[in-house]
Structures are given as C-alpha cells and as structure tokens.
C-alpha cells in the first residue's frame, strides 16, 4: 500500500495537471472564438465568388478550350490528396480522424488501381501518414511558426497546386480536412478541388441575368483568373474550418481531461484519508495493547 507521503505527492501532481488542462481549455475557447469569427469574415467573399463563377462557368462549360482547372485533364488516373491537420496535438481524436479518413481514401483509390500523391498541411498529419505512405508524399507544408493562418498561406498552397497542374503531375485533386460542424463535432470529409465542381446556377435569378453580362476581358481569360482565386478561397475556407475545429476539439479534450483529473483527485483524497485513519487506528491499538500488557 502506498504511503501517505506518496499519496500526497500524487494528489499534488494531479492537481497541477488539472491546472494546466484547465488553462489550456480556456485558451482554446478564446482561440476558437477568434477562429470562428475569422471563418465568418471569409464567408461573404466566398459567396460572391460562387455567384460570379456560376454565371461565368455556365457561359464557358462545354467549350473545348475551357481551362484545365475547370474540366480537369480528362483523365482520372493520378489523384492528389491534400490532407489538412493541425500543427499540434492534445486535441482528442482530431488529427487521428483526418489521418484515418485519408488512409481509408488512399486504400480505396489504390484498390481501384489509381496512383495517389499526398500533400500534407500540418505537422501532425505528416507524421501520421508518413509512417505508412512515405513513398506517396510529394510535399509537406507546415505552419508551425505562423501565428495566424491568413489568406496568404492558402494562396501559397493554391499556387503550388496550380504549378503541379500545369506540369501535369495529377488529374484529380481533392482536399481532406475536418469540417467544423459544431464545437463538439468535427467531421473528416473530402472535397474535390480539380476539376472544379461548378456551383449550381440558381435557375430563378442567375439564369435570366447571366446572358446579359458583358465580360472584360473575355469569358475565358476571366475564368482562368477567377479559378485559381476560387481554389485559394476553397483552401482558405478549409484551413479556417480546420483551425476552428482544432480549437473546438482541443477544448472538449481539455474539458474531459480536467474532469478526469478532478475524479482522480477525489479518489486519491479518499484513499489518502482512509490510509491516514488506518494509521491512527493502528497506533491507538498499539498504545492500548501496550498499556494493557504492563
């Protein structure tokens, strides 16, 4: 049985752990709010971009020299998966979920005989996937020393993908990330980037007005400028959602950890008091039986 001193030591160490997890929970909650606000602020741009794309895409689709980013290379052989995870752990199953989802996708694609290439964003996903799929990783991007994810980072990734597309390094590109559903639930999901899925044309309003638009410069030039922007926006949104999801997940994980630490402290304290009581009783018995013997 543990001595009183051992128990006291353990209680103290669990108490300080609880202090840390509590602080981390608080920090995560504050950062979550900021991340959500940032995601909120990015929405108007994405919405307007979608509206423009819908009207432009409809004008160009079907034409043989539509940009590659819209119609793809026409093949379906090489898949590029961009896996977005967090830079840090201590966030429950957040990184593992995205990693596991990506692994299932890679397996499924390879079972169909496709070639898979991986581009990881975030340190955690890179270490997870490299264990098994090191040969498929074509690039790793890490933002460990970027304080706040901005549009700049998304643009960087988009530029890289565009260059790879021009070089014909892949046919289909999709993004795997944790979609932010709510603070307590993030769902690993996949989103196709190239060929770009065209936003559905709202038949009531857009259809009527789109024929009337004048384009300057031409539709195709515009589209070939708009599509990379759209790509960057999609990535930006995924990065923001992933960041918000990370903090949400970390908050829940730290909340659980704090609660567990509390339970443990209760259990240890009970144990400590019992042991202390037992010691006192034993000493009393010793004194009484000593006195009787005299």
């Amino acid at each position, binding site marked *: 049985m543990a001595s009183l001193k051992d128990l006291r030591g353990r209680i103290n160490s669990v108490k300080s752990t609880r202090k840390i997890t509590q602080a981390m929970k608080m920090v995560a909650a504050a950062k979550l709010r900021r991340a959500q606000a940032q995601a909120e602020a990015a929405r108007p*741009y994405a919405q307007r971009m979608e509206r423009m794309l819908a009207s432009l895409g409809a004008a160009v689709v079907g034409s043989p020299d539509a940009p590659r980013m819209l119609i793809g290379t026409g093949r379906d052989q090489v898949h590029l998966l961009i896996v977005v995870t967090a830079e840090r752990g201590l966030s429950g199953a957040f990184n593992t979920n995205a990693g596991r989802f990506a692994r299932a996708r890679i397996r499924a694609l390879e079972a169909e005989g496709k070639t898979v290439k991986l581009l990881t964003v975030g340190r955690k996903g890179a270490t997870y996937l490299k264990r098994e799929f090191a040969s498929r990783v074509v690039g790793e991007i890490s933002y460990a020393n970027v304080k706040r994810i901005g549009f700049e980072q998304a643009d960087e990734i988009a530029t890289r993908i565009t260059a790879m597309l021009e070089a014909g390094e892949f046919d289909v590109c999709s993004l795997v990330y944790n979609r932010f559903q709510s603070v307590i639930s993030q769902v690993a999901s996949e989103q196709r980037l190239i060929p770009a899925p065209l936003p559905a044309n709202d038949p009531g309003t857009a259809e009527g007005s789109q024929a009337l*638009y*004048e384009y300057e*410069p031409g539709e195709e030039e515009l589209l070939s400028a708009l599509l990379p922007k759209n790509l960057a926006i999609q990535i930006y949104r995924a990065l923001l959602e992933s960041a918000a999801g990370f903090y949400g997940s970390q908050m829940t994980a730290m909340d659980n950890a704090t609660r567990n630490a509390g339970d443990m402290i209760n259990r240890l304290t009970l144990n400590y008091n019992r042991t202390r009581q037992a010691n006192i009783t034993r000493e009393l018995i010793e004194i009484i039986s000593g006195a009787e013997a005299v």
Partner: protein
Amino acid sequence: MATFDLELVSPERLLLSRPVEMAVIPAYEGEMGVLPGHAPMIVALRGGVIRVTEGGRETESLFIMGGFAEITPGRVTVLADEATPLASLSRTTAAQRVTEAEAALAAAANDAPEIRDRASDRLMAARAMQDAAQAA
C-alpha cells in the same frame, strides 16, 4: 442623387457595404466610373485605387491589389485580393513589394507563360501601389 449598393470584400473580411453615388474602379483595360443603372458586367481588376463618391464628394479611396468586380444596375460587388485605405499605405512596404515582385518575375523567366504573366501582373500591381503611396 440616385445611388447603388457598393460592396467591397477581401478574402479576409467585408470592407464596405453601403449605397454610394459613384465608384471609379481600376478595371483591367482602364479605369471605369460606375454610376447607378450601369449595364451588367463582370470585369477583372488590376492594381489600382477605388474611389467612392457620396453626396457629391469623394469620401473613400482604397488601394486594391487586383481582383474582380460584378456590376449590375443596382449593385456593384468588388472582390479584391487585398484592400488598404489609401491613408494607411506605407511607402516602405510598397517599395518592398516592388522589389519582391521584381525578384519573382526574374525567377519566373523560364516558367510557363501563364506563370510569367501572373508575376508581371503582380509587379504592375506593386508599382501601382508604390505610385498610390507616393501620391497619398
């Protein structure tokens, strides 16, 4: 005087959304003054200054690093890659951007024409930023 709704959004936030009388936007093929009732258009923008007129006076001027605009008779939506109020432009950052863009263009000399075009567009935008910063 008649007004139309002007919206200016960058990827990071909504910068402006209110009725104005006139906006001058730096379209790809030259500056363009937009009044209410303009024919519907979608235009690409280059680096330049957006000037907003309200109540007969110029009330707002922002520098944008290129982007797109959607124009309809009652509304103008500007999607800017990056937008800064003219007053808060800094000459040193502008000069730095120009140097960076020049370096990027030099580095892209052997790349595909699309990439080179993009780099030269960026350089032009950076030069426009420098001009705007000096004028401000």
